[in-house]
């Protein structure tokens, strides 16, 4: 039976069939260096299948089942080519993914360093380590999906897509499909989770649009979990060579990192920029004299990598915090003491950091001290000592992680200097309807972050109304015209501040109308108790709903004032925002099986001013859960021929509520100086801080046995092997650890 004759099949298309559909490949918008090598990325591959997930054909049918039946019958004639997955192997270019580029080593970027680089050799204590961080699968429970429809005769198309970035997608897909931006509408409905994996423009979206245009009928695509694992971007996949320079008494003099980053088989939207985003936080919250960071991006036969919750900053924080612990072990000091003595001194105003950008405000010590207090740090150390003393099978470990991160992406001028093609502003429109209701159109595109709630609060606080009176519209390019969408913990710091500025504009206009109606001069009015009131005669007042109604009626407006009470603001942040915090994790490790249980988790974060505490706590809890998952469970594994072995939720281990502990959360509040709201950002902090806290705890639990190295995830087998390795030659019963003695190299992490 020919494929096209199978029941319900409307068409089967390969790249050749769609040659005219795509004037350009899929967009990559961050060519971070002048000499970066960029492969063309077609929605369907034209020549070589470069990773499992690189689609060769698309079947359109009347139902999903019919399409799957037909897709099964598509026969691909292909010659098997060698694959390369290991970063260092790939860098040798024995197997080159993109012939036209001539190399897999497609980009090299350096921060350029700061301070005296000689310190990394001359310091009294030099700690060097290599750390591997495996690939991760972002795993939004709600997978990707899209629906394209339009009026082909009019050349107008709409794409409903499970995306974090409708505004950016409109620009990108217009270029890929040739549909003018003026004829292309993108709707991001209830998107579900994203975690960066929907901060992208995907082949399936371009294909759905092109096929809707070609077939003259709506085309829908929804991924299943296996497709998600193969073709939705992955995260992490990096190797760091790390150096810490310090003194015997615990001062950190310098931090230096040289990174290899797995780009995957193509660039997706931001791929090469992800390591660079981390490049600005490799000093951590510490006051160091010297700093170096560089990375090399390498192509491999695997799913493209891109932003995954934290995007570059978890990678950075992980290696810094592992290194600080190694340093503490080397000099025989408590890791808490070492961290505390190295924290950057507080500053209320923005201050230039060693990496060259201005940190908006900082006050790390109170956060750090609170975390230790909540974790009952000293008590835990005593408990640990007792278990070590008694030789308990189950040992306790305590891990710390102090971090700083960069949010509020981003000042457009800096983005330009970093060769990002777009700006970092955002926009808000407020429309005050007559008789009291207010419509907000935001350029941010929430997908679970609760902007409807927080934005309503900002507007209600500003305009003296209740949050119930505010309707927040988002995620549709035909509704919110201007925006740069949601990612990088930017929404409150950029979109929220834009909204605050729009509130001010509304109030400026409202004040003019109020003065006119109350027959006083504007200077005689004050804003008090949710209304403009005449000074000295507070009963003479006009509320925003009053003024919105009269501005709409326009029966008697002051000279030169346009009808309708509304305000629009487009805000370009003058600086990033810099949240920080300290997390403490206590684990119990079964030394016979290697299994780790998290006993206690404390997170004390400083994200500046908090708009809605419940939303902030939710973000921290979710982020920490993802970080614990990264530390103990998750890892994308390929076999030697490039097949993804962890291709379902049975093999790719996402922990459940049973594995994630109750968390003890608290905050300190150091307002940002970047925006008038004072907000910094919280959505990625949990994922940034937690992996090293957990791994440091695991190492700490078995360090007395001689274990100093530990990979991610710290699976039972990996922990068991580390213990075996460290206690080699010690008497053991049936391969177990009974009677094991600490290895000779205890404390010697050289």
């Amino acid at each position, binding site marked *: 039976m020919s494929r096209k004759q199978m029941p319900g099949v409307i068409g089967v298309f390969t790249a050749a069939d769609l040659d005219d559909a795509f004037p350009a490949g899929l967009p990559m918008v961050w060519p971070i260096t002048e000499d970066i090598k960029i492969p063309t990325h077609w929605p369907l591959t034209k020549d070589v299948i470069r990773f499992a997930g690189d689609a060769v054909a698309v079947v359109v049918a009347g139902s999903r089942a019919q399409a*799957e039946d037909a897709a*099964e019958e598509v026969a691909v004639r292909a010659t098997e080519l060698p694959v390369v997955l290991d970063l260092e192997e790939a860098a040798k270019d024995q197997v080159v993914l993109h012939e036209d580029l001539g190399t897999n080593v497609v980009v090299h970027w350096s921060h350029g360093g700061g301070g005296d680089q000689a310190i990394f050799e001359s310091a009294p204590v030099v700690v060097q380590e290599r750390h591997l961080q495996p690939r991760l699968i972002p795993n939004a429970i709600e997978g990707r999906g899209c629906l394209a429809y339009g009026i082909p005769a009019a050349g107008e198309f709409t794409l409903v897509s499970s995306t974090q970035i409708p505004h950016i997608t409109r620009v990108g897909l217009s270029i890929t499909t040739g549909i003018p931006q003026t004829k292309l509408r993108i709707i991001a409905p209830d998107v579900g989770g994203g975690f960066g994996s929907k901060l992208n423009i995907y082949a399936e979206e371009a294909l759905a649009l092109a096929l809707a245009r070609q077939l003259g009928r709506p085309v829908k695509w929804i991924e299943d979990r296996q497709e998600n694992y193969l073709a939705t971007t992955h995260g992490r996949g990096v190797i760091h060579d790390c150096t810490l320079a310090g003194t015997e008494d615990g001062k950190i003099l310098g931090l230096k990192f040289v990174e290899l980053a797995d780009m995957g088989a193509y660039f997706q939207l931001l791929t090469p920029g992800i390591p660079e985003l981390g490049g600005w936080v490799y000093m951590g919250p510490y006051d160091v004299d010297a700093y170096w960071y560089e990375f090399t991006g390498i192509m491999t036969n695997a799913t493209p990598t891109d932003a995954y919750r934290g995007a570059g900053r978890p990678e950075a924080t992980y290696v810094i915090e592992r290194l600080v612990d190694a340093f503490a072990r080397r000099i025989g000091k408590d890791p808490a003491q070492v961290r505390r003595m190295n924290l950057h001194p507080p500053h209320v105003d923005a201050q230039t950091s060693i990496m060259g950008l201005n940190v908006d405000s900082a006050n790390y010590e109170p956060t750090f001290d609170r975390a230790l207090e909540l974790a009952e740090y000293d008590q835990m150390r005593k408990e640990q000592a007792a278990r070590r003393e008694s030789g308990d099978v189950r040992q306790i470990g305590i891990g710390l992680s102090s971090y700083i991160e960069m949010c509020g992406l981003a000042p457009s001028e800096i983005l330009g200097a970093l060769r990002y093609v777009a700006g970092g502003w955002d926009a808000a429109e407020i429309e005050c309807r007559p008789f009291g209701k207010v419509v907000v159109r935001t350029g941010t595109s929430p997908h679970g972050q609760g902007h409807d709630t927080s934005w309503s609060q900002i507007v209600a606080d500003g305009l003296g109304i209740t949050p119930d009176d505010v309707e927040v519209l988002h995620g549709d390019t035909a509704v919110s015209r201007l925006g740069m969408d949601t990612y990088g913990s930017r929404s409150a710091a950029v979109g929220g501040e834009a909204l605050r500025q729009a509130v001010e504009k509304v109030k400026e206009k409202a004040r003019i109308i109020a003065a006119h109606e109350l027959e006083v001069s504007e200077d005689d009015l004050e804003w008090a108790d949710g209304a403009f009131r005449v000074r000295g005669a507070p009963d003479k007042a006009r509320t925003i709903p009053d003024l919105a109604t009269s501005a709409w009626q326009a029966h008697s407006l002051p000279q030169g004032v346009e009808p309708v009470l509304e305000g629009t603001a487009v805000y370009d942040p003058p600086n990033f925002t810099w949240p920080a915090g300290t997390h403490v994790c206590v684990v119990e490790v079964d030394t016979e*099986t290697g299994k780790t249980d998290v006993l206690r988790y404390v997170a004390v974060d400083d994200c500046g001013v908090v708009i809605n505490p419940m939303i902030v706590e939710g973000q921290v809890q979710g982020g920490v859960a993802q970080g614990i998952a990264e530390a103990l469970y998750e890892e994308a594994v390929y076999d030697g021929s490039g097949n993804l072995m962890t291709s379902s939720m049975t093999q790719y*281990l996402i922990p*459940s509520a049973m*594995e994630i502990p109750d968390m003890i959360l608290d905050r300190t509040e150091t307002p940002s100086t970047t925006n008038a709201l004072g907000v910094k950002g919280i959505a990625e902090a949990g994922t940034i801080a937690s992996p090293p806290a957990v791994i440091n705890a695991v190492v700490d639990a078995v360090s007395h046995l001689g274990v100093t190295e530990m990979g991610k995830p710290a*699976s039972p*087998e990996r922990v068991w092997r580390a213990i075996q390795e460290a206690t080699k030659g010690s008497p053991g*019963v049936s*391969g177990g650890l009974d009677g094991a003695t600490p290895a000779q190299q205890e404390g010697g992490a050289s």
Partner: protein
Amino acid sequence: MIPAPFDYARAGSVEEAISLLGSDPDAKVLAGGHSLLPAMRLRIARPSMLVDIGRIADLSYVREDGDRIAIGALTRHHDVANAEVLQQLCPIVAHAAGQIGDPQVRHMGTIGGSVAHGDPAGDLPSVLLALDAGFVAQGPTGTRTVAATGFFTSLFETALAPDEVLTEIRVPKATAGWSFMKFQRRAQDWAVVGVSAVRANGGVHVGLTNMGLTPLRAVGVEEAVGGGADPASAAARADEGTAPPDDAFGSAEYRRQLVKVLVRRALEEALP
């Protein structure tokens, strides 16, 4: 993630199921569907017809039957876990059923499906093996009882004929010492390695999950305990005759280590 096309028939009785099975050599019994349907969605299993026995009400029961307890093949894991007869007279079965998957799985999956599926990673098969359970199978020519020790023939293969329906699981009363050790990564996971130990005839029976192509008995351990060895030295023989898998959950080497630790702990718990 959508199964290949298949026919579906709902059987009103065991006899009807048997005759439907006989009418199509590629037909399969559908019980709770929690092993079969995932395999069909991945198109690993492609039966031409499903014979749904899920509505045959008289296949779901737990009752005392002389010196045995009889469990209907369609009894859901949740009901096995909560059956008072089992909790009192053969607690290891109730306990192990309560460790399967998550609540959703336990409300759908059946003890008969677990046994008939013959998954070496299943929790109940090795428990039933340790208990020397009997499996009652009904076919076109009548009913027979197969001993657990001869039932699991290879990976996902059992002594059941394609047109036989498993109707009942028969276990002895076992209220002396017992232990069930399931080592898993996440609460809802299959065992990386599982160990069940039951005191019987003055000795101990030890069943192993996920240590080979079928559920296994740790014969070496049973012998050693019979010969008076203490748990630690008996456990040293736990991996004898096993062929553990090498997969994402653990290497064979690791499983060999793990099984010794778990057997030792299980013996310590089961023996006075």
